[in-house]
């Protein structure tokens, strides 16, 4: 039976639509170079979390609070005293604006109980969260990417419980949370910056724990102060290592390069270093009470480099002049009196010479 006109048009139309869709799809997806589908996703960049803080250059840069006791009340008083020493109204009001999402980054690197000093003291974390909430933060996120299983590290360190008590949120890292971050700007052609070992650089573009950073308006580092077998000390700058993903363990071949790069990468809103317990040896894992001394100290600072140097000298009782990564960090982002990296331009403080701060009266100390 011959095909009717209507039928012919129907069938022919359907065939033409299918052929057109196939051709259109192929042209749309056509990759002439054969390389369009390759390569990394676009990299993120990190803002300067201190730039938005209205901080007078004459105000104290390091504020030290000392007190005896590891109960929450004492530690809370110490944290308040340390933060108060930086001035500018009650609590964190100078640093946190109403409605800010705050990322609090403690060191939760290992699955250890608080008494071993391998992780930031949970009471310190709790106090910092409380201060953030009092300053009007809309949300507080506590995040770290530990070496051991994250949930267990947060649980064993007591930080999970501390966070829960203050109504903040722990963010446990998962593979989907990591995104490449351009630590240094890409080249003109868009190709990622290649770190130059001759300049002691290690980080170009690297996957970081981006999920908490994406949400955060402010970042507060709450590092533990402890010994480290390879880079001598894990303090404020080393604490940002916990934001890295990927095969970060290969950085240990250039550990001072990477730690100073981390300082360059992250300009935090504030540093609150936990010197309640100080692991003096066998770090970074410790595991014995004999490795730990009572430090009785909380240090708040707007200059992570000087803060590290202060802690290295006064808590770990070592000479900062011999700590290579402080030296390298000074070269990478430290201030010079009038040069291109003055505070006015860089919008961040950075000197490894904490004694200069002392001589200029920029360190305040308090006992509680």
């Amino acid at each position, binding site marked *: 039976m011959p095909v009717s006109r209507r039928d012919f048009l129907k069938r022919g139309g359907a065939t033409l639509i299918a052929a057109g869709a196939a051709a259109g799809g192929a042209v749309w997806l056509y990759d002439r170079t054969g390389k369009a589908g390759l390569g990394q996703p676009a990299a993120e960049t990190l803002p300067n979390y201190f730039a938005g803080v209205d901080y007078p250059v004459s105000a104290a840069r390091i504020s030290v609070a000392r007190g005896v006791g590891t109960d929450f009340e004492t530690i809370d008083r110490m944290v308040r005293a340390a933060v108060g020493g930086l001035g500018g109204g009650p609590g964190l009001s100078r640093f946190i604006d109403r409605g800010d999402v705050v990322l609090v980054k403690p060191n939760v690197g290992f699955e250890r109980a608080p008494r071993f000093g391998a992780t930031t003291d949970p009471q310190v974390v709790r106090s910092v969260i409380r201060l953030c909430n009092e300053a009007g933060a809309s949300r507080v996120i506590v995040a770290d990417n530990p070496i*051991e*299983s994250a949930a*267990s590290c947060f649980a064993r360190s007591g930080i999970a419980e501390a966070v829960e008590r203050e109504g903040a949120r722990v963010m446990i890292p998962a593979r989907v949370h990591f995104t490449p971050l351009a630590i240094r700007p890409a080249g003109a052609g868009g190709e990622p910056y290649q770190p130059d*070992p001759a300049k002691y650089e290690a980080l170009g573009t690297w996957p970081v724990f981006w999920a908490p950073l994406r949400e955060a308006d402010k970042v507060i580092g709450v590092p533990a102060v402890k010994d480290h077998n*390879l880079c001598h000390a894990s303090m404020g700058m080393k604490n940002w290592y916990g934001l890295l993903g990927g*095969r970060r363990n*290969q950085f*240990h071949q250039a550990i001072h*390069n990477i730690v100073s790069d981390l300082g360059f990468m992250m300009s935090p809103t504030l540093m609150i270093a936990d010197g309640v317990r100080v692991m003096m040896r066998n770090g970074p894992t410790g595991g014995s009470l004999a490795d730990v001394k009572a430090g009785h100290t909380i240090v708040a600072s707007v200059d992570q480099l000087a803060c590290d140097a202060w802690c290295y000298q006064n808590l770990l009782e070592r000479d900062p002049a011999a700590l290579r990564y402080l030296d390298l960090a000074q070269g990478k982002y430290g201030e010079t009196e009038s040069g291109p990296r003055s505070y006015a331009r860089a919008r961040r403080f950075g000197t490894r010479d904490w004694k200069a701060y002392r001589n200029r009266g920029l360190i305040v100390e308090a006992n509680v």
Partner: protein
Amino acid sequence: MRITTVRIIVQAAMFALFVAFVLLTTFSNLDESPSLRYCIGKFLEVDPLVSIATAITTHTVYKGLIWSLVILIPTLFLGRFFCNWVCPYGIIHHFIGWVFNARDAKGKIESNRYRSMFAFKYYVLVGMLVAAAFGSLQIGLLDPIVFVYRVFAINVVPTVNMPLQAFFGDYRMHAYGWVVGFLFVFFVSMNLVIPRFFCRVVCPLGALLGVLSRFAFWRIERDPAKCTDCGLCLQACEGASAPDAQLRMAECFVCFNCVEDCPHGALSFSLLPAPAHEVKNPDVKRRHAIFAALVGGLFFGWTKASGKSTRDFSSTVIRPPGSVEEQEFLERCIKCNQCVRVCPTNVLQPALFESGVEGLWSPLMNFRMGACQYHCTACGYVCPTGAIQRITVEEKLGLGAFADVGPIRLGTAHFDIGRCLPWSKNIPCVVCEEVCPTSPKAIHSEHRQLLARDGKKLIRFAAANAVTLVDYPAAGRAVGDPCAFRPGEFRGDPTTSYHVQVHARDGSVRTYPVANNDSDTLSIRGEFDPVPEAGQVAAIHLQLKVPKIDTEHCIGCGLCELECPVVGDRRAVYVTADGETRSMHYQDRHRNRSLRLMKTAGGQ
């Protein structure tokens, strides 16, 4: 309510319970609520085949396995109700068969007629129990509860989690999970060919319950006076137990479909019906059973004669903390993979044939995937048979009351010094030392002066703080070539420093740190004392931290192997089963006793 409706509700509840147990089996759940530890494995503990087979191999009924009486005793009264009311794998088969059954009514009736191949499961049971009697526990390969726990642990949960990781966190990885998943899907798909294929043909637990059913007080009874031989009772008969003729008691799943489907009310579930109406015993030929027993015995011979769990043991057979000695382990482990599921770090992986054929799917530690978490003993909580004992953190780490016994060692770490960066490539590293969790650290490092490549030079001339060098002359030549260093090559970086050793003519050697260099001249920090003379040997060394292992403190947790930057499936530091404590008290079975003994001998 109809009895089949009740059954469907119970089935749904049982399956939901099973899935809930699987999902709740995580370290943090069990750590926080100890009561959960006693319920998440209940399906395994009520499984009579698990308790009977482990009772045969170990002559004991381990802890929770006493719960199997909850199934065993009612089976003696009611028949194989377990298969269609409780068993999660049976429920999956039932459900899939119901949803995807495309047969017409006649086809359904034909597909549910008894076939002689259904006797195969009894031979599987006989073979496995005979192997168990010799000491090889294999029931876990096909026991439906063990099978379904294993599939969910290493295949279903990771597979479902993968697209949902944004919500539920990272999915697990298991190299051969797909094999288990393939078998699972194969048995499930067979429902489209033969309904309840696994349950009717393969299941050794079904076979065991079938044997026990012969004593059942209650069973399906057909009233021949009412029966019109229409065959409708076969339409949905799950067990293919011939309710239309003489009921095969050993095959009946007590699903009640036939009672419901009979249009004439000829079928009922009654107490002690007439013996003439039923076939009491399974359709097993004695000669076939003897043949199956021989095969089971043969299997035992194969496993033990391979030597893989004894003399030729693989050093990769590293068992979870709290595991009993390997021979005893294989007598207990049913390969349910509950430990693999609960492990918070993904370090536990199902084995292939590392421990011989009998170790298939038993848990091994793969330190490229994870490391044994220092304070975790979760695998012991969930082991239903005591292959992994329930230990405390104190016992694991040798603390408190266990200080004299010392920690549980899973094995010992070693360096592959050909691949280790400081050992062979003059590249600084010691990540292994950093992460080593013991105190004092089992991995420590020493500063070593290593001769740099072509580091042996001759001094051409020297100043107070610099030397100009030439290459050491090759054999047969009086003068060496001029050096061609890369400027700054020996300036060192923060973790490597270079030194120059000056060999004086009187044989004394002095070492000076290098500050910088140009193409042929090294400048040093400080000054030479004395200033060297031309023609003296100067050797350029670099100083590195080189890692070492103290076997006395190594517990074999594998964190060093996990974090080693020499990545891939072979790391520069790796853990083997050598020196494991679980075999310590077995003179003939201890794996590398020397690692420990020499240490103690040295101390005495």
